[in-house]
């Protein structure tokens, strides 16, 4: 389990993280979403032991990560800006990784390279941006990490490769209990991947939840009655949004789906539709409820 406690990070006068706290359970995929400068990459660098936080601490199963090779041996970080040795091939990079990470698996490396059709003997400088990202993800996965941190790794990958890599990551989480932290600007990117999601804004987590809960706890209901009605008709539940066009109202409510369906049916509406909410919509309504304008956050 990763425990982040009141972590702050300052670069001269700029505060990148401000007393951020969160807990990331083992064997889950944790998504960090936020705009540029929100602090996602900084948090990942602190979690990787690259930066020493200016305040607070990060513990992996109770052990600090900074300058702790024992913990760092279990972590692999794929940064947004990738690094390869000059004139390196994937094979030579694999040798470098194997020199550094004692659990590096050449078998896994070969398997993934073949799966993604990457030539391990070709110079990486001849690779496209997407191929480099694949190469670095393969290298990271081959280190057999317990904690895998991917900073905007799926950005720029074509859908087929993206799905392949995601499948590999799911397998790792299921079979090896790997904990994966993903960052992205795009909620849609993380929607179908993550178990938990945190929204970062100005160096702090403004919202954190597990996705399944998030999606099932909010319901979008279209409802109509023969008589005129207002928001107060639904005072049996928490209404996050109420919009009425003519006689049809769209209501966003929080609560358990079956129970709410029953309560709304008891009102004998002319029309009752329960619509699925995208993660983005869930976020919009949750943020509005917290007093944020979603446009400012993403």
């Amino acid at each position, binding site marked *: 389990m990763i425990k982040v406690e009141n972590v702050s990070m300052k670069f001269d006068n700029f505060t990148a993280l401000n007393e951020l706290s969160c807990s990331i359970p083992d064997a889950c995929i944790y998504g960090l979403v936020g705009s540029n400068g929100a602090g996602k990459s900084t948090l990942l660098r602190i979690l*990787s032991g690259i930066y020493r936080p200016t305040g607070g601490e990060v513990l992996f199963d109770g052990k600090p990560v900074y300058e702790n*090779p024992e913990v760092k041996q279990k*972590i692999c970080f794929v940064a947004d800006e990738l*690094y390869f040795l000059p004139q390196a091939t994937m094979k030579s990079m694999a040798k470098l990784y194997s*020199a*550094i990470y004692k659990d590096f698996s050449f078998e896994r490396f070969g398997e993934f390279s073949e799966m993604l059709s990457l030539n391990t003997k070709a110079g990486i400088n001849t690779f496209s941006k997407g191929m480099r990202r694949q190469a670095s993800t393969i290298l990271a996965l081959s280190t057999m990490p317990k904690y895998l941190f991917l900073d905007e790794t799926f950005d720029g990958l074509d859908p087929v490769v993206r799905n392949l890599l995601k499948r590999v990551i799911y397998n790792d989480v299921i079979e090896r209990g790997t904990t994966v932290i993903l960052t992205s600007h795009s909620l849609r990117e993380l929607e179908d991947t993550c178990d938990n999601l945190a929204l970062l804004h100005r160096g702090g987590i403004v919202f954190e939840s597990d996705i399944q809960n998030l999606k099932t706890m909010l319901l979008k209901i279209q409802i109509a009655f023969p008589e005129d009605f207002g928001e107060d008709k639904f005072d049996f539940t928490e209404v996050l949004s109420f919009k009425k066009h003519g006689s049809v109202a769209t209501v966003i409510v929080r609560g358990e789906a079956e129970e709410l369906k029953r309560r709304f049916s008891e009102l004998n509406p002319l029309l009752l539709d329960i619509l699925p909410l995208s993660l983005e919509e869930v976020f919009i309504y949750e943020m509005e409820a917290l007093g944020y304008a979603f446009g400012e956050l993403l």
Partner: protein
Amino acid sequence: MKNKFFDLKLYIEGIKRLKVIGTAFAVISFGMAFLVPLTYGYRADGIEAEDFISPLVVLMVAAIVLVNRVFGYLTSRKKSDFYHSIPLPRKCVYFSFMASALTWVWGILIVSLLIESFMWGFDFYLSTVLLVGVAFAVATLFIMAVMSVARILTGTEISSMALFAILFLFLRVCGTIAMSAMKMLVPIYDFEHSFLHYLGFEFFLPFRVIMLYDTDGIIPLIIYTFIISVATIWVGAILYTRRKSEMAGNNAPSPMLHNIYRYAISTPLFLLATEVVLEFLLWGRGYMLEDSITILACAFAVYFLYELITRKNIKKMFASAKNLWVIFLIVLIYCAGLLVARNQILDCEIEADDIESVELINNNTYYVYPENYKIFTVDSDLSKACVAQAYKASCEDVKNEETINRYRGVYTLIRLKSGREIYCWLVNFEGASRMYSEYISKDLELSSENMSLPSINKNTHTVFYVADTKTYDYREIYLQSDTRLKIMNTFYEEYYSLSDEQKAILKTNIDTTAPCVIIWEEDNDDKYDYAYICKGVYYIPDFMPETYAAIYRNAE
């Protein structure tokens, strides 16, 4: 694992990373090691330490370049992040990469020396090649240690090279400038025996190894440099452990350190300008004004250019002007320090009773090696009184800003009863050196051995010099062997007609304005040592008119 200091795999990785540059330096060094002995040909006087140097000087550059290369990732954020994220203690990363660079440099050094030894036909003492090897190994170790620290404390190529220059040279340059300033302010004082001398380049192994023809005192210097290098590497390891990865791409870890680097890089020039300005103000030498302005302009240029190059922003360059007060404060403190030191030296009066003994040393003749200096220890009350009076008068001359000419003075070591030693030139009293000779001759025991001249044989060589009163330097007179023989005969005949007291005066004469005769003798006993030994140095006094005239006649 936390205490792991070395990782073999990372070390091999470092070796591989340096293979292109390392091979290039190896080719240059090995090529020179092969070719230099070929071009020199046969060395009649044996192979000396200096004959091994040329191919090894390349290693000084290699040491800088290889360390820069192996720690090159510290200037790029993504590279730096990668190496800061790897699961090895940072000390281990630092030591492993340092060992890689060191292996290349020392490997090239050893192979180059072997090639040279082979090319020279092993015609030298083994100790010679060992001394050269160890001296260069330690000098390159020091360079690499300093370069690594400079790399760690900066995040760009330019700032790391600037900091390397500061760490490597600042103390030595400032020491040299301070000594030069003190020499100018107190020209009768010999600062070669003060602590300032030890801050000079002579006591700096990376420079000293380039001049290995003089190996005197080099072993303590090697030991000292080795200790400093090891300490610097240890400091480097600590700094590397504490280094922030986010520093990559930034000139310095903090704005304050950036300012300090800029001050340090421009301070030596400001100190030099201070010296020239002081010289102009004290001695009123007109050309110094132009020099002052030029050096000051250069100092300001370095200050602002460093800011412009590192920050790449003209506004920030101009903004840095507001911090110039720090430099002015440094210059002010330096200036005050110089003047206080000058006054302390000149105000220190010496009484005859304070003097334990006096040594009069002739070291004005370039061609005479130190072991052949004329050194007379005098301890009569008469001599002490004379020295005390001369010292006071010389100090007064400096205070009154009289032009001081060391070549007209007598180099003297005054040992005080307090244990203090003063090395100085006594410049002010009528006929100083002649009077000295007279006093000294009374102090010396006039034995027959003391009074004889060296015998002349087929191995004897003579050299004649005359003082050039315009340049205050010596000029050798090139003569045919028969002319030389004639002068020597005149000299010997005239000498043996002198009274004992006059002989003593001649032997002790240190009037460097007089013509000079130096007698050398060939010595073929030691195959590898100097083939000539100085047997005597004689300044011809005016009571030897025939020799005096014969030398001057042939000098024209």
